[in-house]
């Protein structure tokens, strides 16, 4: 243990308490100094008159000065009179400064609420935020559609370059990863199908299964989920940090509609890119399935193709494709709404980016379910 760098001694003299502080009352030793001061505060002193002699203090900084001042105030609060004496003149300004601080009431820490009430209020908050979300999404979608029509009547304001740029980012650059992932998924589906159908001698049905599943559901779902993670999150982060740095406000004061400049190109890019990617991805999945059927199941590609032609109809293909643009719109919408909700802090940016991905994936799946009901009822 190191030698004490600070000390506080006391002696009682004719009803007057003399405290003598010495050493280096600086923030490096604030832990020690605070210990001494709190110990003293805890003890009750009968003296009504206290002098704090600081003439032996070698070094003093704001923290040290505050501790001395705190000690003095504590005595005064207990009804004694206390004063600091023997102060080196060069520390006078410092002590004066410190004496003017911490005069207000301390901000109260509010205590934790009852757990039942807490849970209930959390549930309530969740319900309210769900309702708010819905309202805001609808409102935002409305605003986007309005600005889309505004652009339609004035086509020269259409931001063609911006759309191309966004298409390149979300569409073209996602091709490799989408192709790869869907190839693997097609292959896995085929492998599992062959493995299990073989028991019934029904291997050839694997082609029906892969074809229908990929074209109707898996192709569009996986592509949407990938884009929600890859592009939706990027949109939210971009728009959020633009909002944080007042760039969105700057656009607005220059008379430009952020909806038209930032949101519309992004949403249109997603709405166009998603069907294209779904198509490419589905083809890749079918190819993956065909490869496995050939290598693992032993049917030649020609047989696979023949069988596929019988198994699927054009409606199977269109079911998947029709869903794609809606998925794109949902992802774009959620990403932009969440981006615009970002408030000042870096933490809030992270929060909304996460929310954007989670909500858009959730909505994509809900929407897919709704489509399934719809197509079943029209018998497609």
């Amino acid at each position, binding site marked *: 243990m*190191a030698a004490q760098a600070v000390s506080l001694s006391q002696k009682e003299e004719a009803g007057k308490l003399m405290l003598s502080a010495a050493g280096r009352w600086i923030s*490096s*030793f604030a*832990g020690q100094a605070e210990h001494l001061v709190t110990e003293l505060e805890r003890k009750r002193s009968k003296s009504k008159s206290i002098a704090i002699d600081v003439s032996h203090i070698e070094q003093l900084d704001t923290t040290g000065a505050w*501790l001395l001042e705190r000690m003095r105030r504590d005595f005064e609060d207990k009804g004694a009179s206390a004063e600091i004496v023997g102060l080196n003149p060069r520390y006078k300004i410092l002590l004066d400064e410190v004496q003017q601080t911490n005069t207000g009431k301390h901000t109260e820490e509010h205590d934790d609420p009852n757990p039942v009430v807490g849970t209930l209020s959390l549930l309530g908050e969740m319900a309210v935020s769900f309702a708010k979300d819905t309202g805001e999404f609808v409102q935002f979608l409305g605003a986007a559609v309005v600005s889309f029509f505004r652009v339609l009547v004035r086509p020269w304001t259409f931001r063609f370059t911006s759309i191309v740029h966004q298409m390149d980012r979300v569409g073209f650059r996602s091709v490799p990863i989408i192709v790869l992932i869907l190839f693997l998924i097609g292959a896995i589906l085929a492998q599992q199908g062959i493995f299990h159908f073989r028991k019934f001698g029904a291997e050839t049905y694997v082609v029906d299964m892969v074809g229908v599943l990929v074209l109707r559901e898996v192709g569009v779902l996986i592509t949407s989920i990938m884009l929600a993670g890859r592009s939706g999150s990027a949109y939210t982060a971009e728009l959020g940090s633009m909002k944080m740095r007042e760039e969105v406000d700057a656009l607005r004061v220059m008379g430009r509609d952020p909806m038209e400049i930032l949101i519309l190109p992004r949403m249109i890019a997603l709405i166009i890119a998603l069907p294209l990617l779904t198509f490419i991805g589905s083809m890749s999945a079918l190819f993956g399935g065909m490869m496995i059927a050939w290598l693992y199941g032993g049917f030649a590609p020609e047989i696979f193709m023949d069988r596929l032609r019988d198994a699927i109809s054009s409606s199977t293909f269109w079911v998947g494709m029709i869903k794609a643009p809606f998925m794109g719109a949902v992802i774009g919408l959620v990403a932009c709404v969440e981006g615009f909700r970002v408030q*000042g*802090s870096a*933490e809030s940016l992270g929060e909304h980016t996460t929310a954007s991905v989670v909500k858009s994936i959730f909505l994509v799946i809900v929407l897919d379910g709704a489509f399934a009901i719809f197509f079943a009822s029209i018998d497609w």
Partner: protein
Amino acid sequence: MANVEIAQERTPKPSKVPDNYPIIRVRDVWVSFSDHPVLKGLDLDVKKGEILGFVGASGGGKSVLLRSIIGLVQKQKGTIEVFGRDLDRLSEQERQAIERRWGVLFQHGALFSSLTVRQNIQFPLREYLDLSERLMDEIAIAKLEMVGLPAFVAEKYPSQLSGGMIKRAALARALVLDPEIVFLDEPTSGLDPISAGEFDDLIKALQQTLGLTVFMVTHDLDSLHSACDRIAALADGKIIATGPIGDMLKSDHPWLRAYFHGKRASSRLNGKKT
């Protein structure tokens, strides 16, 4: 009480460095960004306990020099000594010990956006010292009030503050460990003249009581007149002149004449005379 020992290690030992040795000594420093040289062999001394005002054209490299002294920008050539120690020849621990002895106010505040002002100010305390919550709260409020902000600001987030309030809160954070040197990058820009004046007074008070050394990048002519002991002027990647404000005003250098006797500067001087 392990922290006491660490604390002692970190506090300045009575060092071998002579008293009159510059606390910051910059020699022949070159910094360039992708072949665009910003600092070209710059020399500068800052004396212990002085307030040095650092002036220069916008985009001239003032912030770059400040950032290379505190080690955020890599210099290509030259030496920088702080507290008599060459910053290139320090172990990780020595470097940390030195960093604890200076405080920095960045040009844009650089408060942590996800922490409240109180948490921001307490951040260095939490990192370096082991104090009770109560004392940390009190210190945070004390610092906040010393830089002229009311106590209720403590619970606000940086995004809820005005530009000037951010500056002050950031200064409170820079000062919380009572450093020996503070680097201020345009501390008074964005403050109203009254607050800027109070700010100058505060810096002077801290310098006198704590023996603080201040390296202040500023464009505020009033600060240069009232707060700074000495001024260093940067032009074309070098220091073209150093000295008290009187010398600067008398200098014949064209840039200095333009700076201190330009329209804005002279109207200020004239205003003072009348």
